[in-house]
């Protein structure tokens, strides 16, 4: 049967052109990603490791979404430390513009250059000065450009991208798909070495299709019981495995309740540390009740859980 879907035709072309796919330099297998992240004290799971692996191999940015406190930013940090790469961080906010995100000309330095040319006599040609003041020496490198020009391995973290306006998202598009930045007076700067790009979003607004299309999507939700237990044991030294077990069970139960804000990993870690400090060896009702405020941030939630456990 002859298939004529556009998708299909492109597939056939790709199959013929297998070297289209380049292999990652650092990680050869998904398991290696797992181990590397574990080395940075970040307990990964199949979803996270596979997506990171694909991001490196396919050279595509990762868009990480999920509730607060589940380790989205932590993932970028762990990756940079396990790769021995520099972490370049761009915190997004409303009103972010290209001068803060990509590059800016150093006006005062340009002015000085022109003045000094005038002072040294008429010998300097205008053309020369012009090409000179728009050279890289007069560029101020903001995070995105920095991530492109650096020759060392880098992890670029674009944090909370949903905070910028839809129009501002366009600033990132060229970088995300082609790993290059175009400066009108200067030309196009392409990455010599592809940085690993992680974007995080708290999902407060719909991101544009154009942005989403360029990224791999990773949703980091609340951990399942086993992963939570493992994270607790790893991050809280001295925590007995029985207690870690009960904490994980209890949190799994809490997350099925209808609460305003479910406790995430960072809260369960805080709670485990609190329980340890109080000398708990097992989960007992009075102690749970008196420390619920560590886990839950709304009075209504605390009351709901109290009515459930006592």
């Amino acid at each position, binding site marked *: 049967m002859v298939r004529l879907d556009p*998708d299909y035709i492109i597939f056939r072309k790709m199959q013929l052109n297998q070297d289209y796919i380049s292999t990652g330099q650092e990680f050869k297998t998904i398991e290696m990603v797992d181990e590397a992240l574990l080395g940075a004290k970040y307990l990964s799971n199949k979803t996270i490791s596979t997506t990171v692996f*694909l991001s490196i191999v396919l050279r595509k940015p990762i868009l990480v979404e999920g509730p607060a406190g589940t380790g989205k930013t932590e993932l970028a940090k762990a990756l940079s430390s396990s790769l021995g790469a520099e972490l370049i961080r761009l915190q997004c906010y409303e009103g972010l513009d290209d001068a803060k995100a990509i590059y800016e000309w150093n006006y005062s330095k340009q002015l000085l250059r022109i003045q000094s040319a005038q002072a040294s006599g008429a010998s300097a040609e205008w053309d020369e000065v012009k090409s000179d003041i728009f050279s890289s020496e007069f560029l101020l490198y903001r995070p995105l450009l920095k991530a492109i020009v650096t020759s060392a391995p880098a992890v670029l973290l674009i944090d909370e991208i949903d905070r910028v306006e839809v129009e501002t998202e366009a600033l990132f598009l060229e970088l995300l798909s082609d790993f290059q930045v175009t400066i009108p007076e200067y030309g196009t700067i392409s990455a010599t070495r592809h940085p690993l790009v992680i974007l995080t979003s708290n999902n407060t607004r719909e991101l544009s299709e154009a942005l989403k299309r360029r990224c791999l999507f990773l949703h980091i*939700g609340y951990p399942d019981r086993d992963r939570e237990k493992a994270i607790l044991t790893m991050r809280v030294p001295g925590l007995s495995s029985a207690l870690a077990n009960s904490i994980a069970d209890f949190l799994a139960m809490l997350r099925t309740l209808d609460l305003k804000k479910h406790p995430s990993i960072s809260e369960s870690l805080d709670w485990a540390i609190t329980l340890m400090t109080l000398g708990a060896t097992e989960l007992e*009702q009075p102690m749970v009740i008196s420390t619920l405020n560590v886990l839950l941030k709304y009075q209504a939630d605390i009351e709901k859980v109290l009515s459930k456990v006592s």
Partner: protein
Amino acid sequence: MFDQIVDFAETLRLAGVPVSMTEVVDAGRAISAIGEVDRSSFRVALYATLVKDESHSEVFDLIFDVFFSKRSRSSLEIEDPHGLAPDHEGEGDDSKGSEIQGARDQGDSGGELRSWIIKALLENDRARLSRLARGAVARYAGMEPGRAVSGVYYTYRTLKQLNIEMIYDALREARSGDLDGGKMSDAVVENDLQELLSNLRSAVADEVRQLLVEDRGARAVAKTMRPTLPEDIEFMQASRDEIAKIRHAINPLANKLAARLARRRRLGHKGGLDFRKTFRESLGYGGVPMALKFRSPRPSKPEIFIVADISGSVSSFARFALQLVYALSEQFSKVRSFVFIDACDEVTAYFDAASSIEDALRDINTKANVVHIDGHTDYGNALSQFEERYGRSINKKSTIIILGDARNNYHSSRAELLAKLRRNARALFWLNPEPSNYWNSGDSIISEYAKYCDSVVECRNLRQLEEFVDRLG
């Protein structure tokens, strides 16, 4: 394999997940890149490239399970009767295996099978559980090849025959060692048991799906399952599961809407020209108005009067609309809510008093005084009560939103009251959860009311509700 992925993407699109062509290409690159791997990595590769929204993941999983089953099998028969029994205890001799095959239609109590299933659940042995589910489906589901069904009924029949209550009791007894009488451990154990039961349910559903796919092919099965995104589920026809899905989808939706409305208000249009300031400033330039000065924008937050029909047929719609509006209440200067069937009552206080919207809705159902004569919807009477009691509080800042299907049981419409309300209010909208081609059929008298509404909006699903609220803010 690529054929299959193209089909897969096509099915996702049919279900409403936007999948672009480049994303399909990425999916192809991704699976080539990961090479021969296990099913879960394969799933992640497709998920990361094709899906860009967490609320789509349920539909994705459903279709993924149809297209790429946990294992492939060739016949409807149980090939390995020995596999049904726990292998280490010698319970599963040949006679039992064939007995299962033979007893398929004889309505036997199935105690053996049930006890094996309980054992597998307690030991969390997924492989054996799915083998046992296969046996149970073969025995109880009574599947008929070739029928274009989604399999929900087969699953239901199998679970019913297995007697899921008995399984629950047995599990509870087995876990009773963990109970110390305290309510806390009770809640934890209960949660655990529910998880085990849902494992069993999904094992059976997987099995049924698997058989359907073998029977009719993945694409056809995916189509009959009609996977729907939460925002496309119709309020009036939602099943209980679907209602739960909509409920979960509302809060993230409300957060997004709130952020959008707040941002629009902050960045939105400037205030009008401030002539005085502009003129004062122009004196500095010899009377030339070099810089125009504007008044600071005064965000006008609408005051909402929401009047909801909560009679049976439209109650779930009213509930979601109320839930959404209350989740957004910070975006409005005031929200007052009223509910009616054939009498009208204000319920704002329930929302203020209750700690959660769920509680408030429950209070409304039990406490609100909405029945006047017979508990059959009477828009005329409800309107006249609303107008009489609360009409005076309506002013030019108030936006009135009426929720209902305008099916009036042939009572009088009293549409003139609506005209009066409209005159005093800033705007009056009517949200109707029925498809617009049903309007004005039977006892629906929406057109009589429509004359006095700024607009009547069809609101069948979350997507339409979201659009409406977005325009409102």
